[in-house]
């Protein structure tokens, strides 16, 4: 398939891997931010091609994984109210809250529907004027513009039975939280290409200079990731600290300014709790005063709901790159995709689920076909 196969070519991958081997003279620890990259790395076995001196840590960029338990609880609570159609992207439906998840709520009679776009939820609201349609607005800067657009259109078109439960998070504050931790081991970042397609990468330059770590804006195909690693290692080996763009076919320095404008119009930057990490100041988006009427938390009276997270799950350490999934004592035993203790085991982008699915056996040795 065009624009995919070129980036999965075995020979080109091996060439890049060889180039990384050639320039690597000492150990380096890198982090890919995005869960999509984690998934691709583990699925294609990108890390198996790397020199042993390079360690990849898997960052907090899986929106499903960092959505706090209490937001899932709010979602299940709202979905159970009469007259509500609760809509969500597919992979949020299985994430466990304190006592239940959205799929179980559906089985118990709630009207929970999977949608592919917030605009589909908006159409549902128009088609069902006597029902309340709520959309679970989850994600990073990638999904925020479309979610903002849905609310913008709802206000413009006077659609009053539509609201969103907002759980938007922002990448740069999470990176800063990792870099400012005294336990930080990350020496270079692969920045998430799709986030940067929206935001651009100006914001990363002060971070790079403040913490003296290189960033490379990186795509999601195996060759993108290998090239991103190559560029990061090259900066480290040469002692440079820059923000470079590997994903130039999708990302411009200033990003998508129209998308940013609609985000600014609808959202405001707020403090946000991250699952497993805790509250990070100014790390998320909430509806601003002009759109407060569309806030499902207020409409359904769940704004003050709080929940404690499982103490057994170490997803916080995993999301911050301090532990690898298989280093968790519960991994693959008490915590599996069927019975996840935390969200990193639920989403296909979660590091634990990716390891469980593709890497359960360490030092896998098989002969080749």
């Amino acid at each position, binding site marked *: *398939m065009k624009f*995919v196969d070129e980036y*999965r*070519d*075995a020979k080109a*991958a*091996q060439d890049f891997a060889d180039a990384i081997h050639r320039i690597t003279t000492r150990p380096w620890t890198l982090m890919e931010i995005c869960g*999509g990259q984690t998934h691709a790395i*583990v*699925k*294609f*076995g*990108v890390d*198996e*091609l790397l020199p042993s001196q390079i360690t990849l840590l898997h960052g907090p960029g899986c*929106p*499903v994984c960092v959505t706090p338990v209490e937001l899932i609880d709010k979602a299940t609570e709202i979905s159970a109210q009469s007259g509500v159609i609760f809509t969500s*992207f*597919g*992979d*949020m*439906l*299985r994430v466990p809250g304190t006592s239940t998840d959205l*799929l179980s709520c559906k089985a118990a009679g709630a009207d929970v529907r*999977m949608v*592919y776009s917030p605009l589909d939820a908006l159409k549902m609201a128009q088609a069902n004027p006597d029902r309340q349609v709520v959309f679970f607005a*989850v*994600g*990073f800067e*990638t*999904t925020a513009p479309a979610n903002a657009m849905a609310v913008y259109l709802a206000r413009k078109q006077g659609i009053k039975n539509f609201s969103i439960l907002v759980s938007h998070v922002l990448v740069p504050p999470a990176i800063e939280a990792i870099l400012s931790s005294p336990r930080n081991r990350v020496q270079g970042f692969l920045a998430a290409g*799709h986030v940067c397609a929206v935001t651009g990468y100006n914001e990363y330059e002060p971070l790079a200079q403040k913490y003296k770590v290189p960033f490379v804006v990186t795509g999601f195909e*195996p*060759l993108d990731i290998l090239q991103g690693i190559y560029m990061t290692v090259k900066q480290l080996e040469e002692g440079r600290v820059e923000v470079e763009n590997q994903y130039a076919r999708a990302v411009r320095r200033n990003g998508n300014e129209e998308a940013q404008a609609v985000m600014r119009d609808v959202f405001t930057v707020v403090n946000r709790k991250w699952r497993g990490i805790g509250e990070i100041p100014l790390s998320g988006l909430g509806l601003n005063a002009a759109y407060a009427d569309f806030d499902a938390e207020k409409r359904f009276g769940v704004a003050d709901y709080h929940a404690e997270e499982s103490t057994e799950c170490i997803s916080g350490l995993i999301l911050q790159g301090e532990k690898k999934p298989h280093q968790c004592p519960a991994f693959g035993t008490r915590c*599996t*995709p*069927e019975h996840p203790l935390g969200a990193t085991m639920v*989403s*296909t*982008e979660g590091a634990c689920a990716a390891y*469980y*699915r*593709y*890497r*359960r*056996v360490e030092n*896998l040795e*098989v*002969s*080749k*076909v």
Partner: protein
Amino acid sequence: MSPNELSEFELTCPLPISDYPAVLMAHGGGGRLTHQLIERMFLPTFKNSLLEARHDGAVLPMQQGRVAFTTDSYVVKPLFFPGGDIGKLAVTGTVNDLAMCGARPAYLTAAFIIEEGLPMATLWRVVQSMQHTAEQTGVQIVTGDTKVVDRGKGDQLFINTAGVGIVSYPGTISPGSVQIGDAIILSGDLGRHGMAIMAAREGLTFESAIESDCAPLTDLVFSLLDAGIDVHCLRDLTRGGLASTLVEVAQASGLHVQVDEKSIPVREDVRGACEILGLDPMYVANEGRFAAFVAHQDAERALSILRAQEAASEAVVIGEVQSTTDRMVTMRSMIGANRIVDMISGEQLPRIC
């Protein structure tokens, strides 16, 4: 009902539409309307001597030897989709399960659970499609049942079919018969049925409609068996897709299954749809594809037999069974690294971003 459907219905449906344009509770009540439905719709359509006995069950003539017996229920939504419909699926699904046992399908049952209010024309189209597929696959629908449930208590139409088939192949075709060194042959490209249904169900539009691969596999299977290919196991790749089938076989045989991702054909439009939605074609359902585990020395011959037929012109060897007794499946990825292939816990859910 669209005007087109109506005229087609009036021309062909034996039930007077002016009286009963939709299925009523009484059509499942066992009285005159049930009788009318059977006499005017099911009997003339499925026409065969066993059914015409109008008895509580069909009495089948049996030969010496082994009989395969299977059942499956069909709850697909929408009832009609590009490349097929619930009627075609209800026959091919059960016929294919029999073929996977190495059995030549002979007789089917058909049980309908109909939601009150289903347009009679819809039922008629489904029944016609079942008979058409039955003729194509050489099976007879010899007994059945009709129930009608209250409106809102079903989802238009559910069908259950059970089937029996005659096993004349001397070996045992089952996951437990798989042996070290067996070649794994895939009969064609993956993922079309699942993506066709998803597109139809969710209103997703792609440049061209993806058609389900829904098709009977009997002829393909018997082309191998009749040619004396040493077949150890056959599996159709329905729910859970190729990945789940491979895992089941690795677990049942106690051996290791190794496949090569690059060798697995997936059509461009299916790959594109999967990429957009974040789905893996390895786990997407098929209704006209199977994997054959055949003795290593017969692999090339099996492949050329399959490829000579249009329905399996893209058949390919995707891997082999290896001696490690870890009961696992591994796949060599596009870029040449190895990874585990596992079952997924539920349905694949489209990703956020």
